[in-house]
């Protein structure tokens, strides 16, 4: 097993910078998820690791070996493509065995290995079919099988579950999670779905416009987002973020959200800060609290989403456990524990 290290990696396409000064170290056996909005450079970063693109500057190490000049074929990194990229003219067994055939393994060894991989992915019955005769989920498993066939040191997956329907996606997510435990391989997984990221990852790398915004475990990102972007990206529905004026009249800067609530904003500079509250941390109260008017109610069964406008923010969302009798147009108040507020300075960084 092998870790990966990226040191100040840059990538430009012509003059156009796509990856900017990425420093990252991925431990052996870890499952790291790259997540970020479309076009932020996740696939590009993955392709740099795979060796499909050359890095423009910086260093890339596989284990203790400098690897940025190493050919893709020599890196012993397997990849599951965003599009699966199965070989349409080969059967399932031939697809899975192809890397082994290239490695010039004896035929009997290949058959053995293909059978083993097929078994672990429940593909045995499909061995003689062509990719065109498979369902989406089956194709997905074949693509993973092909990547696993030669016991790669590192497995890269680029949005492997997009285009699958919700039920299948859930099933495949469990399957991937199981595979990761079973193989103990280093895995890098790209997605723009934060739920996938939260459920699968040992650590999440959040990217925006070619830069790494924060690296951490799912719970770290959830409970201590480094900036407003991360705060809004992780969690669904997303965090309510609003700007608030600083009150320095009492020495220490505070923000006042209502008559009773004053929050200390220690270390804040300038005249304003951003405050954030997760929808699930807002408890409705009859009197006092943060007051607002309900603009819409969504009943999800297990919980209810209440959209509200209030003096401090428009278009806020609160998540209430169970089925709630709140109605549109009602006046409502929320209580939020002081430690559940997230405060960010004017430039967006956590205080």
């Amino acid at each position, binding site marked *: 097993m092998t870790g990966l290290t990226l040191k100040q990696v840059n990538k430009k396409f012509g003059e156009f910078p796509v990856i900017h000064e990425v420093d990252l170290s991925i431990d052996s056996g870890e499952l790291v998820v790259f997540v970020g909005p479309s076009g932020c450079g996740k696939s590009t970063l993955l392709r740099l690791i*795979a*060796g*499909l693109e050359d890095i423009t500057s910086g260093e890339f190490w596989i284990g203790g070996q400098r690897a940025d000049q190493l050919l*893709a*074929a020599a890196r012993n*990194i*397997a*990849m599951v*493509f*965003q*599009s*699966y*990229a*199965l*070989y*349409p*003219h080969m059967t399932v067994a031939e697809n899975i065995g*192809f*890397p082994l055939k*290239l*490695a010039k393994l004896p035929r009997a060894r290949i058959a053995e290995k293909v059978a083993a991989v097929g078994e672990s992915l429940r593909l045995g019955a499909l061995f003689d079919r*062509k*990719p*065109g*005769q*498979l369902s*989406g989920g089956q*194709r997905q498993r074949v693509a993973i099988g*092909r990547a696993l066939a*030669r016991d790669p040191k590192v497995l890269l997956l680029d949005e492997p579950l997009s*285009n699958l329907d919700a039920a299948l996606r859930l099933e495949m997510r469990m399957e991937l999670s199981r595979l990761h435990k079973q193989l103990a391989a280093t895995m890098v997984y790209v997605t723009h779905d934060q739920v996938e990221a939260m459920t699968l990852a040992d650590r999440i790398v959040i990217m925006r416009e070619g830069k790494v915004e924060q690296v951490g475990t799912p719970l770290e990102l959830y409970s201590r987002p480094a900036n407003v972007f991360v705060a809004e990206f992780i969690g669904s529905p997303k965090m309510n973020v609003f700007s608030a004026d600083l009150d320095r009249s009492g020495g220490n800067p505070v923000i006042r959200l209502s008559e009773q609530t004053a929050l200390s904003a220690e270390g804040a500079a300038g005249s304003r800060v951003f405050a954030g509250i997760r929808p699930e941390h807002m408890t409705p109260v009859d009197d006092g609290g943060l007051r607002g008017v309900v603009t819409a109610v969504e009943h999800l069964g297990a919980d209810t989403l209440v959209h509200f406008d209030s003096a401090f923010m428009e278009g806020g969302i609160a998540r209430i456990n169970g089925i709630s009798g709140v109605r549109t147009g009602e006046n409502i108040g929320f209580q939020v524990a002081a430690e559940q507020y997230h405060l960010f300075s004017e430039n967006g960084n956590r205080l």
Partner: protein
Amino acid sequence: MTRRSPSQTIMIYSLALLLGAVLLAPVLWLFIMSVSSTRDLTALPLTWIPETISLENYAKLLGGGGSTVAESFLTALRNSLIVALSATAISLAVAVPAAYSFSRLPGRRRKSLLFVAIATFMMPPVAIVLPLYAMMGELGLLNTHLSLILVYCGILVPFTTWLLKSNFDGIPMDLDEAPIIDGANRLQVIWHVTLPIAKPALGAAALMAVLMAWDEFFYALLFTNDIRAKTLPVAIADFAAGRVADYGLISAAGILATIPPVALAYFLQKSLVSGLMSGSVKG
């Protein structure tokens, strides 16, 4: 499937029949001529169905007795086969890597090079035949297979390259990168993945190339003047050039000359099925 109304069905079938008749009538007439006696062919009014079927013309062409007719026909057949198949094989061997590089490798100048190659294909043969003739004479290549093979390659390489390039363009880039990740080098990518997927296009290119070389008349007429390298179209024309044209013989030669390309088309037909791409990528 949408259902067609009966009148639509009738219309489609009758138009198809009409098209078939128009396409096949000349071939049928050629065949009838080839098995008719000279007397039937020259009788007035014309008899459509010959009174006696005679295979005499075929016998004359294919063998027996070492007649000069048979000799010139059979050597021309052999020349045509050698020239058409060699030109096709060489062209494809050149066109595959060329098309792959035009389709896959970066570089702006590469694109203009392809345009130049196609422009040469557009050039009318009369424009270049004189310098070519002079060159061939200089090199002592007149009346050789090689001269025709070279000229035909000049025509076929741009054409097959362009045809294959547009087909390779349709193969997703991921299918080049996946085998590279799996440990293949470029040549292995082409051999194991690109070519098998492009098999229908390869078949089509080979077929078109053979046909073009098989039917080519102009250069063959000018560069060959005896049986060492004369190809079928020229040899058949020779039959018509005598004082009395033997239409029956010409027709029989025509029918025989169509058999090899038709047979080739029949065998390639299996590889011409499309839809090989399906299932490789999602969505």
